[in-house]
């Protein structure tokens, strides 16, 4: 397999995207951090939140865009579909590891003086609430801080980014393979089915709808490790399973894919 050639291509592609994204991400973080410090100097309060999801979104979108252009280029240059898949899977693991390290480093570097925190710290802060004061004390001593936080943060971030990179790739494959009608049906289904289900059930039986909603949320929370004080290893397992399932389906979709006409 011409694995090395495909890897080289994907590494160049991801390096550019990586550099651009993280430069912008940290620059914006820095600017808001400085603004926050200045505001604090004058006795004010300045906090921004929600930035944790941006790297997650980047991972998904990177995966989405890793289909069309590379596939057509590889087809024009004698790289087989299985090589493309194996190369992308390998790059996913490398990128997820790098992004996991960066996300963890961001927690250590940015949290002392900004309100920015990684997705892991946002979801599992309670695990490091050693003082019981509702604050994550991950930067404190060895007990549930220090090296344990570092390891758990890198592991969780790695699994989350790997899952999203592969889910994005799967979405990209589906988008490439579906015709215009298929895409419209898929979009309509994603947008309308959950909402319609909820509305219909709400009209039919309010209590049943409330119970169904609660059951759904509880299941998601349980899979995510929430009811047990932030059992992040359960979330890691969920993400790794999502990665695996997305990878298998992606391989099956890619192995017989042909170039479609450009719109």
């Amino acid at each position: 397999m011409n694995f090395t050639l495909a890897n080289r291509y994907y590494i160049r592609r991801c390096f550019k995207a990586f550099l651009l994204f993280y430069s912008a991400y940290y620059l914006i973080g820095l600017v808001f951090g400085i603004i926050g410090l200045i505001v604090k100097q004058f006795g004010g309060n300045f906090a921004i939140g929600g930035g944790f999801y941006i790297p997650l979104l980047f991972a998904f979108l990177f995966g989405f865009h890793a289909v069309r252009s590379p596939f057509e280029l590889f087809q024009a240059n004698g790289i087989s579909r299985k090589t493309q898949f194996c190369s992308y899977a390998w790059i996913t693991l490398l990128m997820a590891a790098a992004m996991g390290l960066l996300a963890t480093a961001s927690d250590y570097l940015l949290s002392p003086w900004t309100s920015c925190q990684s997705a892991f710290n946002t979801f599992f802060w309670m695990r490091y609430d050693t003082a019981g004061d509702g604050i994550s004390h991950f930067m404190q001593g060895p007990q549930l801080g220090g090296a344990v936080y570092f390891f758990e943060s890198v592991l969780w971030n790695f699994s989350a980014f790997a899952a999203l990179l592969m889910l994005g790739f799967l979405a990209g494959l589906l988008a490439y393979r579906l015709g215009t009608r298929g895409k419209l049906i898929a979009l309509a289904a994603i947008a309308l089915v959950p909402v319609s289900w909820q509305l219909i059930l709400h009209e039919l039986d309010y209590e049943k709808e409330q119970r169904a909603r609660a059951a759904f949320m509880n299941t998601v929370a349980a899979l995510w490790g929430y009811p047990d004080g932030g059992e992040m290893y359960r979330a890691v397992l969920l993400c790794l399973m999502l990665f695996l399932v997305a990878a298998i389906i992606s391989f099956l979709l890619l192995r017989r894919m042909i170039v479609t006409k450009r719109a």
Partner: protein
Amino acid sequence: MSRMDIRGVSMRYGKNNALQDVTFSLEGNQIYGLFGPNGAGKTTLLRIMSNQLFPETGQVLLDGESVVENDRALRRIFFVGARNLYPDGRSVGKQFAQIKMFYPTFDLEEAGRLSDAFGLDTKARLGSLSTGYQSIFRIVAALCSNTPVVLYDEPVLGLDVNHRERFYGELLAHYVKRPQTILLSTHLIEEAAGLLENVILLCKGKLVLCKKAQDLMERGYTVTGPQGLVSRYAQGKQIIGSEQLGGMKAVHFLEESPESQLPPGLERSRLTLQSICLYLTKEERGEKE
């Protein structure tokens, strides 16, 4: 010297049989012309040969190895399709550098020389080029690939006569310098006829013939004269087409050994390769006059 074997390849699009049990071989280091009317299956065949499509049945072998999902075999084939599969946003020069990454035998210096010769701006983005210059980009890439097998699908699409002549000249020059197995699919049969050693003719997904170009052209001829004389002469011979105007008739033949002597009153002329292909495919489509 690389040999490609196409064995029993069939392909269907819905109810349409795009290819039906096509079998032939490309012997190493020869130039083949692939001809046929629109919808004959030429592009489908070339895409199957380059792993862009999967045949329903049959095999495509390169030196005994299947090309299907085989990177080692694919590394030795360069396919130039009519569709642009390269990113529109990159400059021509960067595209060549990227092709060099995938094909180590790619000659970047030669690509620069040919770009100058064809007037192709290597700094321009591929997407900003006209149809003709996008074709030029692809044919320059193929000429510089130096792979053992090169497949061209309508390479001169959108090219003016000057560029077409230059392409044929460069193709021959490269072939002489570094022989390759070349398969050239084009509708401009007479323009390419001088380059070809072999002809493959497809019609309605079926292989009509695979023969040496020289043999074919020696076998094809037209006899013209009064209708009665021509009809008497034509009896028992392999007719591929005919025309009639008033009392005069012209009949086209494809014979293993054409008679050297003609009866008085009849004239013989050579059939061009284009005419041979035209009449053979008309016959296949049941359009005999």
